[in-house]
């Protein structure tokens, strides 16, 4: 595996989403529900693929988030575009 390649870990994604949802002030219970559904959706999508790019992953996470929480999806999509 080259330096640029990393292994996807659903816990990392869940932790990132947890941080984002805390910053939006979402109730912990409903945030956990959303995170669980999103990580499951992403893992399902990943089952058919061996190699993906970071932007593929971000696109799918954002699509999954859109289904459950529009604010969380918005901030996830635009987190690097504030300044």
């Amino acid at each position: 595996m080259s330096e640029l390649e990393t292994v996807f870990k659903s816990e990392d994604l869940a932790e990132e989403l947890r941080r984002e949802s805390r910053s939006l002030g979402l109730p912990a219970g409903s945030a956990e529900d959303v995170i669980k559904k999103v990580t499951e959706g992403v893992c399902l999508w990943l089952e058919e693929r061996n190699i993906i790019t970071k932007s593929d992953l971000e696109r799918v996470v954002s699509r999954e988030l859109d289904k459950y929480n529009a604010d969380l999806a918005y901030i996830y999509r635009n987190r690097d575009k504030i300044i």
Partner: protein
Amino acid sequence: MSSLGIVVFSALICALLQLSLGTLLLLYHNSIGRHIRKKTKSLAGSFISGVFLMNFLLLATNCFLSYAFFGGELPLLAFSVLVGILAALSLVIFCFYFRRGKTSKESTELWLPKSISRFVDSRAKITNNNSEAFALGLLTVFGELPFTFALFFLSGSMILELSAGFETLALCLFSLISVLPLLVLRLSVRRGKTVVEVQRFRVHNKFFFKLLAGICFLSLAGFVFAFKILQGGV
């Protein structure tokens, strides 16, 4: 009176620029996700103090520079150059201030040197204590100097034209006006606005901010031309 008007107008233009506001928003976003609210509040307070102090110090430095090089009274040629710079800046702000591109429709990325914006972005994400937040505030004022230097220099010279008792007051007034949007943001977050709502507002009004800042730069150029060049030359 026109000198005080120029100082206040310059401060308003400084307040319209977006780097400190964006950085504070990013700081809020990352801090609320990691720390308790009290810590976030204190980080925001330190950041705003940093911006206030750097504005104050830069303006005071420009007062000194103006005094040292021009004896406190700018010649007509210097005013003409400043008017030219302000007019050029109005165009630059209007055309380039917010980064353009395919992905920038929903973003408020600024047209700053990439290294500066990346550094500010990364610092805002890992800022953990008050001194770091304070330093970040100082840094963001520096980051926007390409756009604000002319404003600082002009205001510094104008402050020297005020009577001695008003000079410190004008310095404080400039610094206070230029941090007003940050105070408003702090108040909004305290009243329950989320980072998403604020960012959506910024994206929604991006064109308006750009237009307003551009027009203000141009108006300031016109103001200086009318009150300092035409009136001073007569």
